[in-house]
Every structure is written in C-alpha cells, then in structure tokens.
C-alpha cells in the first residue's frame, strides 16, 4: 500500500476540521470539528509508526495519549459550553463578544451596545 493513502486521507480530514472550526456558529459543532482535526493527526501518527516499524511503538502510544487528551478536552469544553449556556441561554460563538477588542470606541457604536444588553439580559 502506498503511504500516500493514509496521508492524503488525514490531510483532507484536517481540512474538513479547519472548515468546521471557522465556519460553524454553534460551539458544540466547533468541538466536533476539533475532534476531526485530532483524528487526522492520529491517522498520521499511526501510519508513520507502521511505516517506520518503530520498536518502541512511539507513534501508536502517542495516538493513545492523544485520544485520552481529546476525551479530557471534550469533557472540559462541554462543561464550559454548558456554563456559557446557563449564563447566556445561547452558545453561538460569534455572538459571545464580551471579550472582543473594539478597534475604535467611537466607530464601534452599535456593536458596543450589544454585549452590554446581553449582559443585562443574562442577569
């Protein structure tokens, strides 16, 4: 089997994950896209471990570690998403603008009023 098969599969999965992280608005869908990217990296690790015939199995062991870290990440990420939902009643990542950096205080008239109104609504 050519080594290019797993590598191209992993590259396309990674690109799908990049698209999902950038284009999705729902925070849970963003977490799903991050999982896709992590899986693409795992496929690369396994393919090179098998190809290089590593005696210590570094690639496959690192894949197991990545899977565990991804599980921890999704647990913590969902806890944060649920906390945001409890405070704001929505999880759209492009409407969470409280930490956004306003380029110019005068130019950001209508946009600047929105987070304050959301904060009032959450209380």
């Amino acid at each position, binding site marked *: 089997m050519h080594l290019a098969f797993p590598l191209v599969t992993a590259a396309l999965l990674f690109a799908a994950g990049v698209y999902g992280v950038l284009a999705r608005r729902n925070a849970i869908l963003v977490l799903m896209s991050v999982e896709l990217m992590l899986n693409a990296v795992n496929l690369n690790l396994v393919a090179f471990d098998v190809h290089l015939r590593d005696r210590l199995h*570094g690639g496959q062991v690192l894949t197991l570690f990545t899977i*565990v870290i991804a599980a921890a990440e999704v647990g913590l990420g969902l806890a944060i998403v649920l906390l945001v939902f409890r405070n704001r009643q929505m999880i759209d990542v492009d409407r969470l603008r409280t930490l956004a950096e306003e380029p110019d205080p005068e130019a950001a008239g209508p946009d600047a009023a929105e987070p304050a109104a959301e904060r009032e609504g959450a209380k």
Partner: protein
Amino acid sequence: MTGRDLVFALLGVVAVGAGLLVVTTRQLVHAALWLVVSFGALAGCYLVLTAEFVAWVQVLIYVGAVVVLLLFGIMLTRAPVGPSDELDSGNRWAALGVAAGTAALLVTVLVMGFRGTRLNDAPRCAAGASCPARANGSAEHLGEAVFRTWVLPFEVLSVLLLAALVGAIVLSRTDLPTPLRKGR
C-alpha cells in the same frame, strides 16, 4: 492495486465524506451521528494499518464516549432539533477558502514528499529467528511499550485526566459559595 489498498481507499472515502457532512449538515444531531460514521471508518483504517489495539480504543473512547458526551451537550443546550440555518456563521466563504488552501497545501506537500513510497509494514525479524505471529500493533506489543518505555508519560497523563475531570466538576457545580461566583 491490491485488495488492501481498495479497502483502505473505501474506508478513507467514507471517513472524509462523513467528516465533510459533519461540518456541512444543517441538523445538529445528524452532525453527531455522521461523526460516529467518520470515527468508525477511521477505526477500520487503523485495522487495515495493522494497529488493532488503537482501532479498538478508537471505537471505545471516540464512538462510545466522546460522541455520547457531545449528544448530551446538544441535549442540555436545548439545540434546535430540525434543520436550521443558524448553524453556519457569516464567514463561511472565508472559511471555505482557508480550508481549501489548507487541503491543497497539505496534499501537495505530502504527495510530492512521499510519492512512490510504499508502506513497509512487514514484521521486522532477524535472519533465522522466527517472526512473531501477531501483528505489530497488538495489545501485547502496545502494552509492553506503554508500561516499559512510556510509563512516565502514562502516569503524567493520568494526573492530567484527573485535573481535567476535577475542573469539569467545579465548572458545572451550582452550589458553590458566593465569593467564587461573584465575578460573573
């Protein structure tokens, strides 16, 4: 093209296609279910690559745990059940450009770098010695590797997992005393 190539190509097409549906579908629950298909096809890819233990761990943790956790998150955030146009943000064309650029760059570099390289995954055995009967990625080999060579990272990882779980519990508790909650 051998049968192994064909199986891997089919599984790869299923994995990538399900991944694309995850990021483009307009129903939130369907995205989680397509994620199951993608992860299952990836587990099949690991099996074809002779990494059987990683494949079963993938099925157990990703298909079994992570997707169920994501479905719980969808349920608890009262997500829209039917098709919804609200799932994509306004910058999807910019995102499409960035993703297409990433795919083109990665595929070009990888194909140019590894064109013609064949996967040499025959078991390594010394001349005259008997080859091991099991494949390289069996639970026996990986268990030896984890608990002989990589035992220190393994223990550090268990502490990390404990810290992440404690953090998730603290974040989702509602009965904490008020000074901790005053900042919100």
